């Protein structure tokens, strides 16, 4: 189950950001996070890589969206290890 942290930049077209957020909020796979200026943090959770790609395309294609940056991604069966937000993980001393 891919989970990605994305930074969405909106166009400067009036209330583009509000409309964009409304569109994103309607999707259960998306969590809305912090916003500043024209940027918004979101988390996207999907069932598989194809769906992930499709969702990313959909977000990119929203008229209010200027650009989407990937700042975090987690896919499957990798030997990489968690290295952020330590506090949220069950650290074993």
């Amino acid at each position: 189950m891919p989970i990605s942290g994305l930074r969405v930049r909106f166009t400067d077209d009036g209330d583009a950001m509000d409309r964009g957020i409304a569109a994103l909020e309607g999707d259960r796979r998306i969590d809305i996070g912090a916003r500043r200026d024209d940027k918004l943090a979101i988390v996207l959770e999907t069932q598989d890589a194809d769906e992930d790609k499709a969702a990313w395309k959909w977000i990119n294609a929203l008229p209010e969206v200027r650009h989407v940056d990937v700042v975090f991604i987690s896919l499957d069966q990798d030997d990489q290890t968690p290295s952020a937000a330590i506090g949220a993980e069950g650290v074993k001393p």
Partner: protein
Amino acid sequence: MTMPATDRRQFLKSAAMAAAAGAVLGETETSIALPVLGSEDSGIKWDKAPCRFCGTGCHVQVGVEDGRVVAIAGDQHADVNKGLLCVKGYHVGMILYGEDRLTKPLLRRGDGFVEISWDEAIDIAARRIMQSPDKFAIYGSGQWTIPEGYVAQKLMKGGLSNNHIDPNARLCMASAVTGFLATYGVDEPAGCYDDLDACDVVITWGNNPAEMHPVLFSRVMDRQSSGEKVMLIDISTRRTRTSEVADEYLEMLPHGDVAIALGIMHLLVERDQYDHEFVSRFCNFRAHESGKPTLKGEAISFEEYKSRLAMYTPDYVEQLSGVPAEKIRMLADLFADPDVKITSLWCMGMNQHTMGTAINTLVHGVHLLSGKFGVPGNSPTSLTGQPSACGTAREVGTLSHLLPGGRLVANDKHRADAERLWNLPEGRINPKIGFHTLKMFEEFTKEGGGVSTMWVQVTNPGQTLPNLNKLFEPKSELDDRFLIVSEVYPTATTQLADLVLPAAMWVEKNGIFGNSERRTQQWFRMVEPPGDARDDCWMTIAVAHRLMELGHPGMKDKDGVFIFHMEDENGNEVPIWEWEHYYDINVDRHLFDDYRRFSRMKHKDLAPYDEYVKTRGMRWPVVQQPDGSWRETRFRFSAFDDPYVKEGQPFEFYHSTSGDGRAQIWVHDYKSPPEMPDEDYPFWLNTGRVLEHWHTGTMTRRIPQLTRAMPSAYVELNPEDARELNVRDGEVVRVESRRGSTDLPVWTRGRGYPPRGQIFVPFFDETMLVNHVTLDEHDPFSKQPDFKKCAARVRKISA
């Protein structure tokens, strides 16, 4: 504390959000890759089961992999919950996996226990019973499956000619039963949960479904949030989570419900706004006139009824109940409005009540008088607290005065009927009513009492009986008493046990429950019980077989055949008393199909076992159609849905106590509670449940998430009372009554908000037993004790 594997994804999301937020806020940049579990969901096998907890009867889908329950989902195909679950429901699978499951039979040796074999355990139990079969009692449960209750019932009444069998439902639903019997002549609600989808007004009478029946409550809340107008009126002694979302919160004094119901009736009659058509065609009036009061009462005229109500003016009702007169008028106006559909809900608030039968009949009466009955949305609906209080306690009749299918021990014809169905010699069933719960424990815990051996199954009286210092604790002083306890975990009850039998639970065995709305629900065993734990049903059958070997004549029917004789498809006897053979056949199926023969007399018709396998439960009467299919009944006594209503009339109460097809509208006078606050004990003490824990917490307190969410009991105190007592939140205080005390931390900003002079303590916490404080006064008909009110005081412990 371990983290569930599922929280892994949550962690990943937190990390992803942290990284994304960092990028947005321009404070850092992070790019990380994290692994997730790939194959966690493969190979899971799913099957249906009703939830193990409350009486709502939600269905869950149980996911099993490698012999272990690994996932729970709300069952999308279940009418009751349509895929939704409450917080307990999602965690129900973990009840099987507490670290201290009982896995071996244990025999008391001094202060401790020694492990013994099952053969020894069954032999010891049987020999104890053989010593004096008439001094043996079974204390059972509304959590018994239907077959478990049925075998215990048959062992006692049909085998040992002993009626000392009673369930914990006596503490829970008995007043609802007497209320239904006195009103309709037959137990259980006429309506069902569908009423909640159709009503305009919901009235909760001393009921907090937001916490206790959350999935049912959500049916109403969901209608509200989708824009439908549903008015919620909460009548309660303290503010609860239900009150917080109610349109009207009517705070009443304890016992105020009786006055409020009388006040509504008074106005309907006085203003001539009752439903003349419904009342004149389908109702009679009843009261206790003279002599020994009975559930039939005496007929009174409408004029007498009216004159008895005359004193319950809105002003007088305000005086008795504390609810403003104008609100009594508001309630009466709603009942008087023919265009408003009203569903009343109640549970322990009206049942654990020294006027429990009275208030149950009065609320039915308000609905009958106003004609708010028998149409979807118009219904007086009593909810149950246990998953099979209806199915096992009430329908199988595992109470000291009942036989299966609504038959009475004291009725010659009913006994003869049961003897015929069970193929027993004439006169086998004892005509004398057995001990009800409180009496049973009194007899067990007093010198020379009438019970010397007691077998407790699927319940925890050491925590739930009222006034434990009188009714339970003295057992430890009496060497000649023998307590057998079938349990899954160590409890307050096993602490005093002499023999502990480790039981299989929930989906470790086959089972059938019956929920609040007459819905019978079947499930199959999905995983093996741990260690040597075995089915309760098997234990009862094995003890019965051992009794037969020891020569007890009652263990054979009139043809000399074992009373739990079962055959396979080829007609060969299966030795189900041997555990190795217990699952050679489906014992539940045999027992249920035997039991269902009892269900038709009172028109509680059950379908064959195999029909329930196919469904998420069906509501009785389930009647076979010309095409061979089986049809459930949602609305009893209403011609449009109930096939037993005589043709040509819209309603028929076909078990009427007056024999004329009519229901009874009762009038009872308001009486004060038996113990009220005074100078020495100035607080009203109320007890009950909380959302996260179910009953005595033996299951839910072993689930880490639920324990974290609600770690311990507390005493809920009004902030001003706390200030006056000079106690702070979290400070441990002593709560005491004339009967005992317990120490609890104070919580003033908790779940409920009691008015001044009232305290509330939940009973789930075995380390803080509030039932050392409660009162064992009970309703005269139902014998159900009142856990909701007694006089207590709160004392600061530190100087």
